[in-house]
């Protein structure tokens, strides 16, 4: 009954993801091979620059998960991103060795996860929902910005590391794994490959998750909370788990960010930066894990090109294009393109569309 193809990919496929065909997996493999070869043909600068966009992509993916799949619009992904970045800086600089840097990674991700858990617990178990979640997470972000910007004094020194207030925290080491003597340090192309690997692993892991039992529950919560509660699910718990997981992913992204620039400052909590993940995911398609990542890389590249031109119109152009996308393509670019091109070939429609259903029960089980 099950083909080798289904054994290999079946668990990654389902109605909750776009791309459930051999063509998709073949395309993805080719795209990954090209992406992996990219640093070999471009300069270290271009590779490093692209790595930055890709680590933003991970942040976008964390929002796709909580917003696109569980219906929880979090403006606070940058809070977890920032917490992890700062924690990574504090721990790695304090410990001051390669082993210290290695240990700082899980600690930072853990801190972000715990912060997400606490914030999620107090929102969801306080029965906060819908647009109020968005506004509370936004307020938390703004509060963090205000707070971190005024940590310039000596009293805000943790161990040997001053938080630095508005000026931020310099001297954060590159990402490294290992102990003295046997360590791999990541920068330039190797950093690019690291980010690419993390991105792919996260993507596949999330496909597994959203097409698994918990994924069904998550999507059901997004579609109809009351309904799914009457099937015996504790929706608060479902949301909390997704939110916490999303916080951890955003945290991982924050670690990569802090080590990419060897620096972090309170602007990661600014309204402008907090809105970016929402923008990426909206443009890319919130119900598509890959869409957000692709949109992130494209948008950030485009914004950077505009900045390089030095044109005064740069942000006007960005704002206008964003407005057009939101108004014209409510579902996001990737699901739209998918629907217009391969959607009917695949014979499986996306959530909320009106095309005939087809046989795919085999791959769902």
């Amino acid at each position, binding site marked *: 009954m099950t083909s080798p193809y289904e054994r290999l990919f079946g668990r990654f496929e389902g109605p909750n993801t776009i791309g459930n065909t051999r063509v998709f997996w073949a395309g993805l493999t080719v795209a990954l091979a090209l992406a992996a070869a990219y640093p070999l043909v471009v300069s270290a600068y271009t590779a490093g620059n692209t790595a930055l966009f890709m680590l933003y992509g991970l942040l976008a993916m964390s929002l796709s998960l909580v*917003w696109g799949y569980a219906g929880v*619009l979090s403006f606070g992904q940058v809070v977890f991103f920032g917490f992890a970045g700062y924690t990574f800086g504090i721990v790695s600089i304090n410990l001051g060795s390669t082993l210290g840097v290695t240990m700082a990674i899980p600690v930072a991700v853990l801190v972000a996860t715990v912060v997400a858990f606490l914030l999620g617990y*107090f929102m969801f178990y*306080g*029965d*906060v929902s*819908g*647009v*109020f979640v*968005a*506004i*509370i997470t*936004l*307020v938390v972000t*703004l*509060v963090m910005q*205000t*707070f971190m910007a*005024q940590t310039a004094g000596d009293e805000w020194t943790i161990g040997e590391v001053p938080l630095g207030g508005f000026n931020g925290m310099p001297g954060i080491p590159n990402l490294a794994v290992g102990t003295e003597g046997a360590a791999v340090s990541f920068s330039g192309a190797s950093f690019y490959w690291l980010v690419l690997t993390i991105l792919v692993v996260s993507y596949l892991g999330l496909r597994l998750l959203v097409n698994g039992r918990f994924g069904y529950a998550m999507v059901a919560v997004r579609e109809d909370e009351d309904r799914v509660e009457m099937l015996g699910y504790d929706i608060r718990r479902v949301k909390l788990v997704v939110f916490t997981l999303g916080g951890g992913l955003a945290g991982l992204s924050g670690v990569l960010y802090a080590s990419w620039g060897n620096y972090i400052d309170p602007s990661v909590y600014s*309204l402008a930066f907090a*809105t970016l993940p*929402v*923008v990426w995911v*909206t443009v890319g398609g919130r119900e598509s894990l890959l869409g957000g990542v692709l949109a992130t890389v494209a948008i950030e590249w485009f914004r950077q090109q505009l900045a390089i031109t030095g044109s*005064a*119109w*740069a*942000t*006007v152009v*960005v*704002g*206008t294009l*964003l*407005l057009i996308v*939101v*108004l014209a393509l*409510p579902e996001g670019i990737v699901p739209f393109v998918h629907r217009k091109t391969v959607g009917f070939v695949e014979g499986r429609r996306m959530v909320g569309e009106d095309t005939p259903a087809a046989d795919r029960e085999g791959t769902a089980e």
Partner: protein
Amino acid sequence: MVNVVNLLFQFLDSFAFIVLAAIGLAIIFGMMGVINLAHGEFIMVGAYGTTLAYNAGAPLLLSIPVGVLATTVMGLVLERSVVRRLYDRPLDSMVATFALGLALTQLTRIVFGNSLSSIGIPLGSVQYGQFSYSMYRVLLSSVALAVLAAAYVVFTRTEFGIRARATIQDADTASAMGVETDRMYTVTFGIGSALAGLTGALYAPTMSIVPGMGSSFLVEAFVAVVTGGASVLLGTTLAGGGLGLVNALFSNVYGTFIGQIALLFVAVLILRFLPNGLSGAVEGVRERMERENT
């Protein structure tokens, strides 16, 4: 003794700032469920309208309505062209208004440069002992109260207000009962815009007129909306009063830094222990009292 007067003035000052920063945002959010991330830019447009009129020679009292009018017109145009398409997608409306804010700030910079020369603060000061306080800043608290009262009358005592609230509660039923829900949304958005514009107009003399000026209202505005809770006008009043008192008290005793931290800290406490916000808590108490009396 004199410190009490200081504290009172500072409280009135904080109260006015929080209420005026929040009111436009609160009405649009509370009545329509739209989070206007361009709120700061709406305020900026009000300030620019006022300052440009003043610099062109108009007296301040005439310049303020110019700023309000400019913002209202802009709000109505944006509602008609953008926001109305997103009523059933509140989260996308955040992205859209954010995009609008981005473009508005930079367009303002392109057209009017990096700053405008500003209006001096009118009315001089109140002297008491060794202290003095800006008369205009104190006056703003009465304006804040007047705005709250006017909004209360509009939304609870007028035909429009009743229809608007019916629309908000249940648009389908309201439209079945003959309410032009489209128009209700437009007018409500217009009122919210006008109030944001008024805030910009009123604070124009006290601030630096730069394209990014709106952002300095955002923290107070969003914190007030969140802590105020679902009942917009009551919530904004309570948030302005409560947070204003905390801010004034701690600023007065420990400095502005502690004042800001205290405000944020209290806001977090309110969110934690009063999930329905200040207005939700007050209404809960009122209901309980009514029940016990009957």
